[in-house]
């Protein structure tokens, strides 16, 4: 039984008066892949963004309840959000590389942490590109514009960029939804490798992907956590009827 990395207690989120998340309590184990599934608009991406406080960047958002990472309440007053985000990496739905070279994109994170030594940066670049399984494809093109890569390559580069700040947790918000099946397969393979070292939380609207890739799955509907269990159980023998209806395709 793996240790808990992230724990939420009755987490609710409000956009002004409208409640988007209702009393979500869940435990995410370390060095596993946890998937959030559910139909569009059910709050899974919103909940993901609670974990690294990206929702703070939106106006009129209010949180109730608690979120603990490694036992620390991350919404406590004296928590430094900037440091928090350095310890939790995020990969977005569409690759959002900066209009700079591949090298510059990768070293952006280390640079803002004060690492400027060329040798150290080169090492970081090589390590993360290997971890993201894209080293061979770009090792001779490090000084080219990152936007010249294909969609799948860009997304894997985003993963490498997130790894460069040495997070312990990686959050992925529908990372393969904009990609073709071959690139998707490469990303799923990557996730499988990464979970040996990192805690991964992935939001996906593709149920088959969740079944392929995750150890635990949480089913969200209309802002509530309906069921959370081992992936095999959710997809073969769910306890709640709503879960069963969703995974068998009766709605969504």
């Amino acid at each position, binding site marked *: 039984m793996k240790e808990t990395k992230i724990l939420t207690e009755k987490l609710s989120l409000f956009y002004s008066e409208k409640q988007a998340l209702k009393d979500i309590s869940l435990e995410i184990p370390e060095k596993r892949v946890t998937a959030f599934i559910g139909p569009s608009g059910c709050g899974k991406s919103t909940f993901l963004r609670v974990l690294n406080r990206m929702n703070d960047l939106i106006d009129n958002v209010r949180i109730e309840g608690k979120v603990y990472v490694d036992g620390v309440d991350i919404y406590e007053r004296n*928590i430094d959000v900037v440091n928090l985000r350095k310890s939790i990496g995020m990969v977005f739905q569409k690759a959002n590389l900066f209009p700079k070279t591949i090298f510059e994109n990768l070293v952006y994170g280390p640079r803002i942490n004060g690492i400027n030594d060329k040798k150290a940066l080169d090492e970081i670049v090589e390590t993360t590109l290997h971890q993201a399984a894209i080293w061979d494809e770009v090792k001779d093109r490090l000084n080219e514009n990152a936007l010249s890569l294909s969609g799948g390559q860009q997304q894997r580069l985003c993963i490498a960029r997130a790894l460069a700040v040495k997070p312990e947790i990686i959050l992925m918000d529908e990372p393969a939804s904009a990609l073709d099946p071959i690139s998707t397969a490469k990303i799923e393979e990557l996730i499988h490798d990464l979970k040996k070292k990192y805690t991964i939380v992935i939001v996906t609207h593709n149920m088959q992907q969740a079944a392929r890739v995750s150890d635990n799955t949480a089913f969200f509907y209309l802002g509530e956590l309906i069921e959370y269990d081992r992936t095999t159980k959710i997809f073969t023998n769910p306890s709640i009827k709503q879960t069963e209806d969703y995974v068998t395709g009766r709605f969504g």
Partner: protein
Amino acid sequence: MIDLTKKHKDIPGFIFINLVRLIFGFLVLLLFLILGKIFIEGIGVISFEFIFDEPRNNMTEGGIFPAIFGTVAVTLIMVLMAVPLGVCSAIYLNEYAKDTFFTRIIRTSVNNLAGVPSIVFGLFGLGFFILFIGQGIDEVLETGLLFGQPALIWASSTLAVLVLPIVIVSTLEALNSVPKSHRDASYGLGATKWQTVKNVVLPQARPGILTGTILAISRGAGETAPILFLGAAFFLPNLPVTDLCIGDYCIPMINPAKQFMYLAYHIFILATQSANPTKTLPLQYGSTLVLITLTFLLNITAILFRYRFRKILGKL
């Protein structure tokens, strides 16, 4: 895990972000100081007489009515020329033109026209409108030297060319904001392009066009350099009006061939060439206050209009 409770020291960020805030605040403060000063010094002079009376005693007394009248007359004719031309240009660029080399050149010309120095417009007005067109008209109509000299019509024409980019850009923005789906619906019902433009696009674009017109008027009223030698005068005994008589009935009409007084020009001369600067200083502030109030009212109206216009679209 990184110690999350240790505060991340971002001293440079703190300094620079607050520096930027300070700079912006300083600019706003400066704006209000200038406006305030003009208001305080000028308000004492403003009276019914000041606005509606003629200047007397070598500009040291009296009012500035002819300058206000001249400004209104010139900008009125300017708008009558610039708005139809600008709107039709924008309609072509947005509704009819394909993305060819030719249309790109036209768009570049619009941007370039916006960047031409105002004094160069003055030279253009002199060289083209007065010397070429004006003298040409005089030759053809054999009117001697009537149109081939500084006159209201040429000032209006030159200012019309100057504000043309403003009208075009505002209209383009207005046309662009009409959703494609509305045009598609019209075509789907079997309407021609012109019918679509006339009945679907233009009515929705009207507020934007109005905004552009107001901004053009404000710009035209504030310009001095182009009209320096196109007909503006410091003191004229009469308004640029003549009576148009049909039988016994005479209507006073703006005479485009006459010279005129102009508020912006008046301020310039008062400030730099008045015979008695101490006596005229209050009048300088007063005239400036009137001009600023005029341009500001116009600008604020245009901004409010555009704000409401965008809000309505946002809700659609």
